[in-house]
């Protein structure tokens, strides 16, 4: 593999003579540029999707996982007693950081969107809500449920896992799809560069045989092709990445990311640096693809 490093170094060394050895090819060069640019543009969105879905999955997974609600539905006269009993149980439950019964005002605020602000809460049999905040390790929801069932007949524990799980799963799946798309985009880039490089190698069969005759090594012959396609992929991907990032910047955003998945699509903080990897990766893919194509062509008997 010592040749690989030397080739890498030389691929970026300006050598006008080596470049001139292969005749310029206007139209296919532009096609390679365009394809690399389009792929980079798509890659920006695939990355945005993956990263946003990943953020969402993590948020839903961790924030919601650490909170639970206990609903106490009991006849009016027993409600306070049962609430106190539940709170006592929670105090002695492992994994509970904090438990607190919501006040009448807080419950009224929660119900206001549905019943209006003028609701007289006292006139309705509204259950009491207890907000439970878990510690990092989390609590044993099944065990707590058993204890509550034994001592507080009107209590219902809702640890949010029932509705949370499919959402987290969907977000993780979406994130995975985004990564798969990124990999596919890289593979298509490789295929496209291979096709273009094969076409260029075939079109320049005479150039190759002349170079062979005058004592050019495989390395020398391959270099001119590798350099060309690597630079094209790099420049095309650079333009595509910039355009893709501008497009992501221009997406309308929401103040709260969890409010809507669509408004949260984009990059945040250091994630803006991730798409910067696209051009060098595209160049690396082109380098490897051209090198393999050149090697195959040069190894076949002439």
């Amino acid at each position: 593999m010592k040749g690989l490093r030397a080739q890498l170094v030389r691929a970026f060394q300006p050598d006008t003579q080596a470049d001139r050895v292969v005749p310029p090819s206007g139209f296919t060069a532009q096609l390679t540029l365009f394809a690399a640019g389009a792929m980079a543009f798509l890659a920006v969105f695939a990355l945005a999707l993956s990263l946003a879905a990943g953020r969402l999955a993590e948020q839903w997974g961790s924030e919601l996982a650490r909170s639970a609600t206990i609903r106490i539905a009991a006849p009016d006269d027993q409600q306070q007693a049962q609430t106190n009993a539940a709170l006592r149980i929670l105090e002695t439950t492992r994994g509970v950081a904090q438990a607190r019964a919501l006040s009448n005002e807080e419950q009224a605020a929660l119900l206001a969107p549905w019943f209006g602000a003028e609701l007289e809460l006292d006139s309705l049999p509204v259950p009491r809500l207890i907000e439970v905040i878990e510690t990092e390790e989390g609590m044993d929801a099944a065990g707590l449920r058993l204890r509550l069932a034994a001592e507080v007949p009107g209590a219902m524990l809702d640890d949010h896992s029932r509705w949370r799980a499919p959402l987290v799963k969907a977000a993780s799946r979406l994130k995975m799809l985004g990564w798969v798309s990124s990999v596919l985009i890289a593979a298509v880039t490789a295929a496209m560069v291979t096709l273009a490089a094969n076409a260029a190698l075939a079109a320049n069969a005479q150039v190759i045989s002349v170079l062979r005759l005058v004592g050019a090594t495989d390395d020398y012959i391959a270099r001119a092709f590798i350099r060309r396609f690597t630079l094209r992929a790099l420049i095309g991907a650079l333009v595509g990445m910039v355009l893709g990032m501008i497009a992501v910047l221009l997406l309308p955003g929401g103040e709260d990311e969890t409010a809507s998945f669509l408004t949260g699509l984009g990059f945040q903080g250091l994630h803006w640096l991730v798409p910067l990897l696209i051009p060098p990766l595209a160049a690396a893919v082109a380098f490897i693809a051209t090198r393999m194509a050149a090697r195959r062509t040069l190894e076949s008997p002439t």
Partner: protein
Amino acid sequence: MIELENVAYSYGGGELLSDISLKLAPGSFHFLTGPSGSGKTTLMKLCYGALLPTAGHVRLFDRDVRAMTRDDVALLRRRMGVVHQDCQFLDHLTLSQNIALPLHASGRSAEAAGEDLEDLMHWVGLTERSAALPPELSGGERQRAALARAVIMSPDVVLADEPTGNVDWDMSQRLLRLLIELNRMGKTVLVATHDLGLIRATKAHVQARVLRIANRRIQLAGADL
């Protein structure tokens, strides 16, 4: 220098060359002749490592070609100048860039060899054409350019396969004189040609031996030819 030992070569069908033993000593001048299709070009290719023998051994500069990698062959070509009948160039480069191509391919700078290049262009009489593109050249000019390209690396051996095939008598004489001059400078020369007149004309100027391919084998032709 170039050594063939019981070499045979067969294309898919039958054997084209068989049991060929040949040794080209440094500084010698050889002609290779024989009817069309007798295997002159194949033998030449065996001599510069473009083909591997199907039997026997070919040793070039004391190395068996079978043991050579493609890059070894490439390095070998820098010590052997090869001229074909239909010489090919890089058509988008000028004549002087084409002639300097072996220098670039071997990593030497053309600037350092600038004077040599000028001398060489002058020697083959192409100084005025140095900026021309290969497709603009005549047959004779192409042959001379190919010869210049073949010797710019100052090779030990010059192999020319029908170098006069596409040019008139005067031009063939001129090309042969260039090859004779190279031989006088100590280079080993092997010229494949079917033109016996050319061989006769040359023998007046240089001690040339004639190898003839007949019935798949090689014979040293008599002095009378």
